[in-house]
């Protein structure tokens, strides 16, 4: 497992690798926590012109501090536009202006379907989770979905308890016929590795392991037989500059990155 002995935390690895994937992306729908730090890191490294959109109704935010919530007042001051949530969901997201949306879940399956609703049955849940929020429409209408979440046996599961947000379909023709603006989950970044989706099967496929992680770690933390890319890579460790930006500027208290 990657860890402090290597000079960075698993969360710093996830944040850094997510930021790298934002190179070339222009408009990003941001959530709180690690996605927020990742997008701000991308803005300072690979993607200086990226525009941050928050579901609270903000386009082009320039947060002066790390927001705890997606509705922090620092997102408003200095933004390009603040709009009603109808405008945000209808004219920005549904109309296809969002290049990347970040999602996470309590559970994910091999097709990138996500559960943020319940563990157990819906009618008498063992754990009641927050539900969709904007996730269901982000999954369908953002051009690409980046999933960033920790990987465990209980989160990478054969069958999710509730399908809050749709991912890919095993029936590739049916997926092609969906006619959605979004192409669905594009990359999944966990504390162990990085995954893409196989064109032929629609299934998640390990493409890169983070430094210090083994295939045994991946298998021990996946509830199905994970496909592995033939040219499996090792993720480059966070650079000194990436770590400095996270630790000194973006999350100095280490709330989301330690």
């Amino acid at each position, binding site marked *: 497992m990657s860890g402090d002995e290597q000079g960075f935390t698993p969360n710093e690895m996830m944040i850094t690798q997510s930021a790298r994937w934002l190179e070339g992306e222009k408009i990003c729908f941001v959530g*709180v*926590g690690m996605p927020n730090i990742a997008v701000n890191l991308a803005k300072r490294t690979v993607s200086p012109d990226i525009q941050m959109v928050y*579901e*609270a*109704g*903000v386009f082009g935010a320039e947060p002066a501090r790390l*927001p*705890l*919530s*997606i*509705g*922090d*007042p620092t*997102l*408003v*001051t*200095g933004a390009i536009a*603040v*709009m*009603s*949530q*109808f405008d945000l*969901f*209808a004219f920005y*997201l*549904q109309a296809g202006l969002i290049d990347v949306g970040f999602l996470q879940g309590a559970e994910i399956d091999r097709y990138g*379907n996500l559960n943020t*609703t319940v563990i157990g049955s*819906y009618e*008498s*849940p*063992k*754990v*009641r*989770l*927050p*539900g*969709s*929020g*904007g*996730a*269901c*429409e982000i999954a*369908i*209408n953002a051009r690409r979905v980046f999933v960033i979440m920790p990987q465990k046996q209980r989160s990478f599961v054969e069958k999710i308890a*509730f*399908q*809050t*947000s*749709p991912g890919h*379909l095993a029936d590739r023709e049916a997926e092609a016929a*969906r*006619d*959605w*603006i979004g192409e669905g989950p594009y990359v999944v970044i966990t504390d162990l590795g990085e995954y893409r989706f196989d064109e032929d099967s629609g299934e998640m496929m390990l493409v890169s392991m983070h430094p210090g992680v083994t295939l045994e770690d991946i298998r021990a933390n996946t509830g199905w037989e994970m496909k592995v890319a033939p040219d499996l890579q090792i993720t480059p460790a966070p650079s000194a500059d990436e770590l400095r930006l996270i630790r000194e500027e973006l999350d100095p208290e280490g709330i989301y990155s330690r």
Partner: protein
Amino acid sequence: MSGVSKVATMHDAVAALVRDGDTVAIEGFTHLICFAAGHEIIRQRRKDLTLARMTPDVVYDQMIGAGVASKLIFSWLGNPGVGSLHAIRRRIEKSNPAPLEIEEYSHFGMVSRYTAGAARLPFFPLRSYEDSDIPRVNDKIRRVDSPYGDGPIAVVPPLNPDVAIIHAQRADEEGNTQIWGLLGSQKEVAFASERVIVVVEEVVDASVVRADPNRTVIPGIKVDAVVEQPLACHPSYVQGYYDRDNRFYLAWDAIARDAEVFDQWLKDWVYDLTTHEDYIEKFGDAYWDALRPTGEALSGSVDYGQYA
């Protein structure tokens, strides 16, 4: 030109306009959530309410834990940036102390319901819910075929609350209401509702509203009562007036996790107090000073022009 003043106290506005069994929406997305109104509804011991909100937030955890509601309509159930709403979870997961009926949507579904309600439309179409289990557990989310041959699309019905409670920076005595910062669905829910209570940091002269009409979000014709109550959103916030009290949101997790601690909090901070002024005093001036913005960020001004 000035009409009848609608200015009322929080006590009187809630007593007159919020009734047992009502569907009530205290909206505001992170910003402008009127906790003081929620506390007053608890103090007046309303019961059997249906509470609607996109993000129930801590205010509905307090109200639902206090037992004023039997049903919740929502799209994201959590303590933003912190975790769970434990009082609501107790009712959903353990029916403790009583079951809670839920009806859930996605954010855009809730916004669309308010929009249909505001425009008095029979339904509203949106591109969501495909290959999702949400419609399976909520049969109000349906699919129709576009009459123009564009295939099926999800639709949601209008939501027309009996009462909306909207916080804003300012309004005049007739209820012409101005908001800046995050707008949430304040306009949509106000137009959708049968009765509207507007709570503001400041009641201003009508000339202040007329000097900047583009900033008016809700017209007085939709408003039944105007309550002037500074700091009414704490621990939520009002852009330009006070910051979100993130420490309170973090602290709430431990308070709500334990039903006895929760009940004690309600006693100390709601039932034993008479008005929101008592709540403000109980925290003390230093507490509020620490929540003020660290500096000004004035908007520019625009010239509307005179056209005599």
